[in-house]
């Protein structure tokens, strides 16, 4: 090698080796650090092994392909799932809405038909088709945000359909906004991100992850704190109150009237 022979050079024969070692250490270390940082940012569920994707593909072909197409491209019976993301799969399958049992104005939540492991595989497969919203991490779901702020955001963005305390409500032509009591935080978050069925999408530019956390905090607060004012009659508002007044109060008034008018024997 040239540097061995060139004794007259000012450089030490080990200079090149040192430079190369330093370069390698810098790039390699940098790469390792960068990968670690990326790994940290990625939600845990987004890291899917090829085996899991393959498992998901098999489940998909067996259970979903008849409506959504063999490559999730969609058909007349079901929409395309390309780009809906893992969050959508986790919500739809995790609440039992998918696979749907019967067509109607709205697919309802029912008994979940897959294990969480299978749902994760399905989600990994659908997420591998095209990028989409990922399943939220534990940290995004912890109900430790600002319930007051969450309440205001809920009233502005959600209450018109879901009722001010999340009791649910009616929509048009047989559709309805389901009650949010007892719904897992994960599913509430996923619904906001993906906009299932007739619910609009609330992306992170509209409601930031922090906003979503506050909303979940508010819903959990409402769920855990009983109504202080007495029996809330399912919180459904004037319909339930009116029904109660007509059936029970009016019935009581009629009964009293009959008693007053009846002769004693």
């Amino acid at each position, binding site marked *: 090698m040239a540097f061995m022979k060139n004794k007259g050079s000012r450089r030490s024969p080990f200079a090149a080796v040192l430079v190369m070692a330093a370069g390698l250490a810098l790039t390699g270390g940098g790469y390792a650090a960068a990968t670690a940082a990326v790994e940290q940012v990625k939600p845990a569920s987004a890291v899917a092994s090829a085996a899991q994707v393959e498992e998901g593909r098999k489940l998909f072909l067996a259970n979903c392909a008849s409506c959504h197409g063999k490559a999730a491209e969609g058909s007349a019976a079901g929409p395309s799932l390309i780009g809906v993301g893992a969050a959508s799969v986790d919500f739809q399958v995790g609440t039992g809405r998918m696979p749907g049992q019967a067509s109607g104005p709205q697919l309802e939540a029912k008994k979940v038909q897959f294990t969480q492991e299978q749902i994760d595989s399905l989600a990994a497969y659908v997420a591998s088709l095209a990028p989409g919203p990922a399943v939220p991490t534990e940290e995004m779901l912890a109900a430790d945000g600002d319930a007051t702020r969450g309440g205001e955001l809920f009233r*502005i963005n959600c209450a018109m*359909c879901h009722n001010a305390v999340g009791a649910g409500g009616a929509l048009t*032509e047989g559709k309805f906004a389901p009650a949010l009591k007892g719904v897992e935080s994960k599913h509430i978050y996923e619904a906001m991100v993906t906009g299932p069925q007739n619910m609009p*999408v609330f992306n992170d530019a*509209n409601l930031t992850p922090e906003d979503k956390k506050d909303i979940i905090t508010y819903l959990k607060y409402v769920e855990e704190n009983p109504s202080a004012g007495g029996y809330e009659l399912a919180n459904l508002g004037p319909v339930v109150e009116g029904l109660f007044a007509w059936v029970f109060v009016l019935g009581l008034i009629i009964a009293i009237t009959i008693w007053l008018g009846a002769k004693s024997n």
Partner: protein
Amino acid sequence: MSNKSITSADSQEPEHDYAAGLAVIPADRLQDPGLEPHRVRMTDKSVKHEKAAARQVAALFFTSIVGSAFAVYAYFAFPITEELGTVRLNTLLLGLGITLGLLGIGIGAVHWAKTLMPDAEVSEERHIARGSEEVRARAVEIIKLADSESGFSRRKLIRRSLYGALALFPLPAIMIFGDLGPNPGDTLRHTMWKKGTRLAKDPSGLPIKASDVTIGSVFHVIPEGLSELEHHKLEEKAKAAVLLVRLDPADIKESDERKSWSYDGIVAYSKICTHVGCPVALYEQHTHHLLCPCHQSTFDVTDACKVVFGPASRPLPQLPITVDAEGYLIAQSDFTEPVGPSFWER
């Protein structure tokens, strides 16, 4: 009171004056069935029952005493504290006590009247409304006397000036209606939106980029600057609130004059229902229907928000929008028609 004295028809007047209104009296008309035969109560027949009823009434009154006393006890024994659940317990027990207190008196009093007080059927005769001839003649006499004594017919000057005074005296009252104003002027026709106002998120007031609005998204929008208003903030919000939706541009039916009002499938409509002004914000992503929660007026977002169901009579006004150099959504102008429910001048 005996039955006889009440039911006997010893009045001087005929019981019915059919000649007054009924032209034909059918021969087989229903006969007045009269009163049912009097039924003697158990409490009238046996002293045992009478005493039992008396005890029941007293027991009901005593229940009332217990209820009232319990309400007083509950007020002190279950006070409302910092903990919210105590409100429920306090109001529940206090209410139960007061209810017992009132119901005991009420039911006891009625039970007393029904079982122990005199039990006689009473019927009141209906009399014709017309007075007797003597009464009518006397009334005319009084009016004539009053006229001659006051000189109302004789003193023309006084009478006519009185007519004038009576005609004019309500005028000041009508004039005062003017002070109910000021007239709203054109405030119902204009909102905070003007050319270049950025669309901002409710309630944060942060401006919205067109790229933030993905298909199927709904944004609840206020004009930028509304959050900083010091006066009439709610009034301005009540007029200017807007709902922003992004649709697939292929789904939208747009008239030629409104072609430029949307931006890449993003449309903005007034959130104020044209029926009675509730916020219309129940957006269905698949049907693109906007539903008003108050009276179920339904608007089709793909078709200029025309009314497809319900009592609203006009489509929701559309806010013409575009983007500025930085990509933020801005209004092209104010609404081109008044928002909200109908009023007389529109």
